[in-house]
């Protein structure tokens, strides 16, 4: 695979991971139930751990350590050889496992179309709807302040 091909595959995997990370574990499981999950094995048993979350001085400067967050991770290998990874905030190991499984399927030529249509696509639509709802609620609190002219004398 050429560099461009690898980059676009990487971008596709990343986009799918972002949607999955934002989705509830129950919703992912619900959509996964609609497809025939291929044979796979755990390459890394799902586990909990921490990441140190970094910010930047002033928002855009040198990094500093803000505080930790709980994460879960897992890795699976399909019988056809694709290796998928799941990393997600929180302590839900099952969710990390499902993300890893989806990531492996996204990389499979035979399965990527189906996982996109039946799992990632609907979850993305729900995520965008949720974001838009929040944005609309937030927009209603936009304020215009008027500066009063100070009286003379």
């Amino acid at each position: 695979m050429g560099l461009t091909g690898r980059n676009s595959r990487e971008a596709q995997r990343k986009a799918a991971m972002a949607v999955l990370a934002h989705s509830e574990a129950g919703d992912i499981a619900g959509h996964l139930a609609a497809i025939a999950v291929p044979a796979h094995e755990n390459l890394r048993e799902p586990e909990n751990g921490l990441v140190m979350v970094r910010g930047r001085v002033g928002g855009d400067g040198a990094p500093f350590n803000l505080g930790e967050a709980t994460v879960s991770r897992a890795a699976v290998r399909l019988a056809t050889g694709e290796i998928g990874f799941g990393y997600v905030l929180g302590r839900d190991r099952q969710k990390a496992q499902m993300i890893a499984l989806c990531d492996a399927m996204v990389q499979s030529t035979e399965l990527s179309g189906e996982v996109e249509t039946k799992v990632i696509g609907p979850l993305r639509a729900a995520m965008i709807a949720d974001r838009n709802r929040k944005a609309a609620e937030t927009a209603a609190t936009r304020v215009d302040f008027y500066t009063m002219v100070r009286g003379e004398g």
Partner: protein
Amino acid sequence: MYVAVKGGERAIENAHRLLAHERRGDRDVPELSLAQIAEQLSLGVDRVMTEGSLYDRELAALAIKQARGDLIEAIFLVRAFRATLPRFGATEPVNTGEMQVRRRISSTFKDIPGGQILGPTFDYTHRLLDPQLADGFVPEQPATSEAAQAATPRVTDILGRDGLIESSPAADADTPVGDLTREPLSFPADRDLRLQNLARADEGFLLALGYSSQRGYGRNHPFAGEIRFGEVEVEFFAEDVSFAVPLGSIALTECQMVNQFKGSATEAPCFTRGYGLAFGQSERKTMSMALVDRSLRARELGEEVIAPAQDEEFVMSHSDNVQATGFVEHLKLPHYVDFQSELGLLRKLRKEFAEANEAPDMQEAAE
């Protein structure tokens, strides 16, 4: 000094049993669920996550429940929990400029690109107790209006374009990011360590120090350039995946304080800055943090260090409420051996005092 004691196991066990009973309260009153705490006491959860230095809403809610609402005890529980998990690494620095903004205000500019957004705030409420909330109040659904697609750049970035404000210190690839959970503090401490310390620091302590700096204990004449709260994406470069993996988003509050000018023979005067960042909606915390961050830059900016808020060793050594609680509250543990030796010494001194005062009388009587 504390000397270990033995015994009392039965009493301790019964005391904890009594504690569990008191924690539950009246058993005819329904028990609190973690979801209730996480959803309805969310600012307490945010504080426990920030000062416990661990982003996990459910764990923070559990800690608050276990601690009977004592937030410092809950922070202690969360800190202890984090020691039980391995750390996979550090995330990519979060980009607050791309925050999905829930609230965003500036006290310096009325018209900022992206607008002033009040969001869910206590500001402009009348602070009158609301009897409606006492029982079964169902609030209206929030109002909605069309969301602008415009970006919401940081106000400091806008000022920075004209050179009116100092730029943030650039990242230095050769300098590892300081981590006070891995290496003990030493002084002078760089800004990365100071900000990590302030991010974990007790809100009340920072509030008092920030307030003191406003009242004249150290020069600090700030404007709240911008306060923003919302969700930011977190990415983690995982070695096995070989790219930065999206982990989901976390809620953060950021405060940019804009302070008085600084100039020199070689540099034009410009505004200086103080920075605050915390988990969740933690506005008082980040404002206080930004005030103290700016005060602690006294040495760097060539200002005279005359006030507590400017003294990094004083601030950083006393800001952590888990450490402070440990040292203050250890005083209630048995100190019997120590106290006995003090008592022995005091009796000896009193005896010597009494003898010295009796001696002249005896002499006078003899004469």
